[in-house]
């Protein structure tokens, strides 16, 4: 059984003006092909650093990151990324923003095929009719949808989302969660989601990793059995309440606001 994403014993230290900053400490996470893992943890614990390691934007000091049986040595076009800031290019239309990765990644698609692909994804996220608009003409939620399409347009194996819904209001966010489910069922990918929202983590992911405070390791891993299609109501079942409670408790430990379990403290 091989995982599609395998983070093996990764440690990383940044050199900062205030001296070395030990961010990750023997971090282990593994994600199955087609899986969707959410990572939660205290602010500044190294979650974005983790995404940069997986996408090959950075190399870890120690340990290894493996993608599809190959060790990650640099950026690769089989990865798609989206951030909290949708970073759309204001001078391009929404359609051309979505097409951007196809201009970078080697491929033989004609312009018409690229447009088709982009339009299909825009349709999937409910942005049909907005192809020719400029990003400034869209709401925050719509921009984030477009950013999601851009991350998926080149059919990446791995989709990395770093707090993509963090800046949106609660209702828009829930809309986007459902969109994510729809996208996931149409577009096969293996997902790594960084989030601050515990409800989001259990709604979207089949595995939730709680990272400890700095230097961070995987403090707690929760499996969320998938029961077919999820709807927002699922978040209000006793099962979900139980999970959220556990996660909240783990976050408090990670933040150092609550003593760890007795065994761990020894």
């Amino acid at each position: 059984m091989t995982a599609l994403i395998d983070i093996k014993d990764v440690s990383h230290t940044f050199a900062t003006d205030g001296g070395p900053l030990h961010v990750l400490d023997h971090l282990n996470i593994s994600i199955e092909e087609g899986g969707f893992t959410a990572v939660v943890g205290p602010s500044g614990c190294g979650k974005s650093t983790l995404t940069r390691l997986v996408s090959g934007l950075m190399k870890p000091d120690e340990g290894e990151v493996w993608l599809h049986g190959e060790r990650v040595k640099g950026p690769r076009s089989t990865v798609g990324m989206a951030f909290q800031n949708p970073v759309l290019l204001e001078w391009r239309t929404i359609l051309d923003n979505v097409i951007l990765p196809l201009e970078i990644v080697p491929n033989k698609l004609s312009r018409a095929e690229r447009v088709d692909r982009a339009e299909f994804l825009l349709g999937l996220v409910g942005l049909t009719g907005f192809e020719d608009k400029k990003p400034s003409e869209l709401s925050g939620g719509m921009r984030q949808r477009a950013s999601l399409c851009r991350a998926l347009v080149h059919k990446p194996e791995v989709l990395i989302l770093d707090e993509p819904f963090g800046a949106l209001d609660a209702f828009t966010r829930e809309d986007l969660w459902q969109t994510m489910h729809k996208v996931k069922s149409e577009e096969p990918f293996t997902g790594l989601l960084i989030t601050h929202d515990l409800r989001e983590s259990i709604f979207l992911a089949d595995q939730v990793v709680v990272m400890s405070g700095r230097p961070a390791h995987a403090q707690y891993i929760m499996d969320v059995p998938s029961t077919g299609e999820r709807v927002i109501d699922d978040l209000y079942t006793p099962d979900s309440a139980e999970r959220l409670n556990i996660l909240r408790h783990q976050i408090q430990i990670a933040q150092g606001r609550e003593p760890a379990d007795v065994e761990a403290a020894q």
Partner: protein
Amino acid sequence: MSLKKIAIPTIAVIIFLLLWELLVWANGWPNFVMASPSDLGPAYVRYWDLFLINGWQTLWRTVAGLALAIVFGTALGMIMGFSKVMRDALYPLLVGFNAIPKATVVPIIALMFVGAHDFNTVLIAFMISFFPIAVSVSIGLSTLEPEYRDILRSLGASKMTIFWKIALPKTLPEFFGALKVAVTLAFIGTNLMEIVSPHGRGLGALFDSGRTNSDYPLMFAVLIALAFLGIVLYYVVVVLEKIFAGWAERQET
């Protein structure tokens, strides 16, 4: 809508000229204290060929200096924008260079390249105007949000691709902002050289000849011609900005 856009500034100019005329008339100033707009017409009629020839000379040398400033300033801005070491190294030098009043450089340049009038003038226009361009390009590039770079870099894009696809277009609004300043500065540089180092060319030289011949209406007429050229150059930049960086404009509400 567009009629209004032309009408409002035109009316403003007319009101300005009327007030000026009124001021001179009410105070009974002779034209060697201050010429009035009604003195300007005859000056233009008498010297129209000189205005055309000298105006053209001022114009092309300003534009040449500015073109050099754009090429050099952009290159310098790119170097400083991409490399923090170069930024730290060059910034103080650049600020020091910019702080030297160019009026003091003019005679030096005039002596260094005696007789090379066109070259002198273009050089001053260039020296005075490249600074804002270099600074704006370097700031534009160095403040590019890392996510923009990461989006392309995570796909394996080269530095050059990132520059062409993102960094350059994203810097254009700042670049044009600086260009509006630079165009005015280049214009000042050209005239500085034309007046300080008289060689009978350009509107600056025409101004100088007005002074030596005590032809005051001519001097004022040159000032107005300079203002007119300055406006034309400025609005050329505005039009270019609309074409190349129009996306950065806020939607009018």
